């Protein structure tokens, strides 16, 4: 029995070596270690589901050994696979260490078997696919396709603004324009505040707030309106800050301003 076992192991080893030698000649033809493993697995002549991963690992390692002997340089990924298979082999041979974490040898072997089976399945599928009737080889498209003329359909659009603009143009001499704030003619609250903060020091007596309008803003009605509004708002702000007092005699009357420090003076 034992002798038989040894004999068989020897014979296997010889077979592996022979196989490996045959394979090495072809090494460039392999699409990576998984492809090589798949080819090696065929020597087992069993269903991929029943394959002996241990035996496959031996075959692969024998192959790598042989390649070394023949001084054939194998690509790094073949050597990585060899190292991994050596590790797997030891895991499969040694009794499981309950202390050790991670997947068992069997789990790793099962996954490798799955990978091989999946690769083989994809190869079969690819072959089935390529064996199908193909367009341009087995069946054909129209030989004289007819030109499809592209007709342009022009649709016209207009917006509500266009419409109103058109109407305004007809009914007035004004040009209609989308609403845009005219920055040139706007005097801002900030500008007014700046100006007034500088000037109120001089406002010891009641002064019409309109006297604070900036220069060059009085003539043009639009600029004057903006400057007036800003100056008024700035006056209110200054009153709120407790810097000035404001007074007005009556409705639509002049609005006057006086610096607060001079209250009691």
């Amino acid at each position: 029995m034992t002798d038989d076992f040894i004999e068989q192991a020897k014979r296997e080893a010889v077979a592996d070596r022979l196989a490996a030698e045959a394979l090495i000649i072809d090494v460039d033809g392999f699409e990576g270690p998984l492809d090589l493993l798949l080819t090696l697995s065929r020597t087992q002549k069993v269903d991929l589901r029943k394959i002996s991963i241990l035996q496959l690992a031996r075959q692969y390692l024998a192959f790598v050994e042989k390649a070394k002997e023949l001084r054939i340089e194998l690509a790094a990924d073949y050597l990585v696979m060899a190292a991994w298979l050596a590790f797997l082999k030891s895991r499969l041979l040694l009794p499981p260490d309950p202390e050790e974490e991670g997947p068992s040898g069997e789990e790793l072997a099962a996954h490798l078997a799955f990978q091989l089976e999946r690769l083989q399945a994809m190869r079969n599928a690819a072959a089935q696919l390529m064996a199908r009737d193909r367009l341009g080889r087995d069946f054909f498209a129209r030989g004289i396709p007819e030109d499809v003329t592209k007709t342009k359909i022009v649709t016209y659009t207009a917006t509500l603004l266009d419409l109103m603009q058109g109407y305004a143009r007809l009914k007035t001499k004004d040009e209609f324009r989308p609403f845009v704030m005219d920055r040139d003619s706007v005097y801002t609250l900030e500008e007014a505040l700046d100006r007034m903060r500088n000037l109120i020091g001089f406002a010891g007596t009641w002064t019409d707030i309109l006297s604070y309008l900036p220069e060059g803003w009085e003539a043009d009605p639009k600029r004057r309106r903006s400057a007036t509004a800003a100056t008024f708002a700035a006056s209110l702000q200054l009153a709120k800050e407790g810097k000035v007092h404001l007074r007005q005699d009556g409705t639509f009357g002049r609005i006057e301003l006086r610096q607060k420090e001079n209250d009691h003076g």
Partner: protein
Amino acid sequence: MVDEVADDMAEETNTPDVQEESLFEAPPMGEQERMVEAILFASAEPVTVKELNARMPHGADAAEALVHLRKRYEGRGVRVVKVGDAYAIRTAPDLGFLMQKEQVETRKLSRAAIETLAIIAYHQPVTRAEIEEIRGVSVSRGTVDQLLDMEWIRFGRRKMTPGRPVTFVVTQQFLDQFGLESARDLPGLKELRAAGLLDNRLPPGTLPTSPEDEDLAEETNEGQSELFED
């Protein structure tokens, strides 16, 4: 030519026995018809009877198969036509209109059309003469036709004035296009002004009004009231 070929074929049909005697039995006529159909379909050029025969199995009779195929396609969307001394499959002439793909191009409506449309929208129902009076130029037939064609305007009731002229009104499509519930939702000139959508001038009252402005305001009201009066 076509008839000649047909005659030729009829003759062939009568002598099948001769062919069956030959070494390779010809495929059944139904099969031959399929073959001619496939070859004509896939070929990049019209195919002659001679070439069909050369490509089909020995003993086949392309001419006869063609007769059957032509018959089969009678009244269909495509048909077998003779081009010179060759045959091809072509679209039925009455379906040529399907060989077009539509591409939509959007263009802006012309100024004349926009103005005419605006007048109709603001003054509807309005006659052509009224449109021309407001625009100050004659309204081209094309402009009105275009708007009618786009279904943005339609004919309204005739005016009860001499000549009973037709009027134009805007359509629901028009309202949908411009997101309006009704033509009354169109802003009047006053509102356009108040919203700052008309140049510089301010709503009358806030600033000294020029006579011109007042005129305009009045006109606007008139326009609007006209719209509501009808």
